[in-house]
């Protein structure tokens, strides 16, 4: 029984990480209608920024959020203005090609600038744990999990309770009409992409205390993020959270009770089943929204 609980706890915490990484992807899907294959690379950039601030200035990763978050927002704006905007009206395939290209560029730029070795941050709490009723909980991962909850809550608040969020939702619902009504859509695209990339960067920072940064880390994360978003439902932030946690739990349970070698296989099997049975995802906004990002 203890094994089951420990496994579940580990799985939920892992799921928090997955949710954290996937939250930003929804915004770009839903509002800007772009499938961003470079999302994982932005997570990687966040990790490296946190690492270099730690290595060079001795800054604790959580403190470095104050610098990394705005920096990543800016990067997102530049990304939107320079890369996405010119191809905004083109086909979905074009957008995929371009973001895949950006992904490759970022990976190799990281390799070129920072070398191939893994960079690991070592803080006083890197291996800290606390035990609750016989179950060990890693401090770093718990903070990341709480971070995911906070971010989803914050995003939810922004999207549903602020004017900015209302405008973004309007644009997502009907882009052409938004333009006709006089909404400066391009400016709001900056905001959407900025927030999306910033969230990716923040996820990276929160992973740093317990994960090593490397140029190729991003690709793995992009894959996970896509699965989470599809299973959770594209466009649904709560879906990303639930989807992420579910995935983490399934993966860890599979690892303990079936075999660690089959963890990834089980993950993808679940993915295929969900796509076949309920393509809009668990919390998807109903049939017809599956093509979000492809229109």
């Amino acid at each position: 029984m203890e094994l089951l609980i420990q496994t579940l706890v580990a799985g939920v915490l892992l799921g928090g990480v997955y949710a954290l990484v996937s939250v930003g992807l929804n915004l770009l899907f839903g509002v800007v209608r772009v499938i961003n294959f470079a999302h994982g690379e932005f997570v990687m950039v966040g990790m490296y920024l946190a690492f270099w601030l730690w290595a060079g200035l001795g800054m604790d990763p959580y403190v470095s959020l104050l610098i990394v978050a705005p920096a990543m927002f800016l990067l997102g704006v530049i990304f939107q203005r320079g890369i996405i905007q010119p191809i905004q009206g083109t086909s979905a395939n074009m957008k995929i090609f371009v973001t895949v290209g950006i992904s490759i560029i970022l990976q190799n730029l990281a390799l070129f600038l920072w070398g191939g070795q893994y960079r690991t941050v070592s803080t006083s709490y890197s291996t800290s744990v606390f035990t609750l009723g016989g179950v060990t909980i890693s401090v770093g991962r718990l903070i990341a999990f709480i971070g995911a909850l906070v971010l989803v809550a914050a995003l939810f608040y922004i999207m549903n309770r602020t004017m900015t969020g209302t405008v973004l939702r309007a644009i997502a619902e009907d882009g052409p009409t938004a333009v006709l009504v006089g909404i400066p859509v391009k400016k709001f695209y900056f905001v959407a992409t900025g927030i999306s990339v910033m969230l990716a960067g923040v996820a990276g920072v929160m992973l740093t205390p317990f994960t090593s940064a490397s140029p190729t880390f991003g690709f793995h994360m992009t894959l996970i993020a896509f699965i989470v978003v599809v299973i959770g439902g594209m466009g649904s932030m709560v879906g990303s959270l639930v989807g992420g946690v579910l995935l983490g739990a399934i993966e860890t349970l599979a690892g303990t009770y079936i075999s660690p070698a089959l963890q990834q296989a089980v993950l993808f099997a679940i993915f295929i089943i969900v796509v076949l049975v309920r393509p809009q995802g668990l919390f998807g906004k109903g049939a017809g929204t599956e093509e979000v990002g492809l229109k």
Partner: protein
Amino acid sequence: MTTSKISGFARRHRTMSVATVLAATMVLTGCSGGGGAEVGEESGPIRIAALYPTSGSLALLGEESWRGANIAAQRINEAGGINGREVELVQADVPDVNGATSEARRLLDGEGLELAIGTYSSSLALAASEVYARGGGTYAELGAISEEYNDRGYENVWRTNPSAGSFAEVQIEFISEFVAPELGIGLDEVEVLLVHEDSSYGSSVARSVETLAAEAGITNIEYAPYNAKSTDLSSTVLGMEQADPDVVIAVSYASDAILLARQMEENGVVVPAFIGTGGGHTLSSFGETLGAAADYVFNVDFTQYAVNPDATPGLEEFLTMYEEEYGEGPASGHSLANFMGANVVFDILEQTGGDTSAEAFGEAAAAYKAEEGTTATGWGVDFNDAGQNTLAAPYVMQWRDGTLETVYPELVATIEPQLATEGQ
């Protein structure tokens, strides 16, 4: 389909011109290739091809490996070269298999470099040496460990470093010579858990261990493969806790080695003997990042730097030259292994009088012998019929207070090994 507007005569004329140009090109290329080799033989520098991945995903240790060979060349040139001729390493960057094949062709056929060294990565070594072996050249591997390299039946492939099988051999030997006696149990009672990353690196080492363990009489052995890219190895660690083995043999890359050790510490899982198999457990970042959590982790790998100086002549000199040239210490023992291997190649060339042809090199290499404890890595030299150096073997190291000390065999050890459960 459009019909050609050129008349029949003009078409034949054009075909003839093209054919003539092609033939001329082939003749000229053939001439320059052959001519170059002949002219360079008696005088001028001894040119040796050096194929290493210095860009791409293998760049970290590819560059490290190249540095060892480079320093060996510098050192011998400072001492006057070979037979008064300078040694020139013609470096080629081979980031992937395609690169390895095309660069090998270019260097062998285009530049006429009959002798090549390299390569760090097994897949690259196999690709490049294939070109050289079939093309009548000689390939001397100084760092890659895949067994297949010497198994293909080629005459002119040589390897100065230990092969993958020897890693498993040393691990089993260490278990039977030290771990089992220390625990007071027989080999048939020792419980071994093999935790390995699931790509070809981890799986091939696991297979080697499996075979050798069976031969040695170790019957309790289980396997726990995992994905090196996982961000969470909880399942693996929990499985380890459940299994409660005497020995864990781990085969990991860099970040998963650190992650595994961290999560073992978090969950309070301690194993009497945790033995890494080179890779991530050797890197200085493992010790630096984990600090005290790395203590008592054993590791089997090429010679590292905390080793008995009496058994590794030339190592101090190597370290000094490395520091001078690159402004930092070596990242791993790969550079040392390539330094030793390059020196062996140069020694063989002394015997051939600078002749890099396959015949001369082959004869001298087959006859070349060196005793253990006489080279910078401590390895001896004695090539078998397949070209493998049978006197090269990895050593067992142990992380103690942030340093990777050598603990086995006795000839090269700096301190005595200690089980993790005794040290705590």
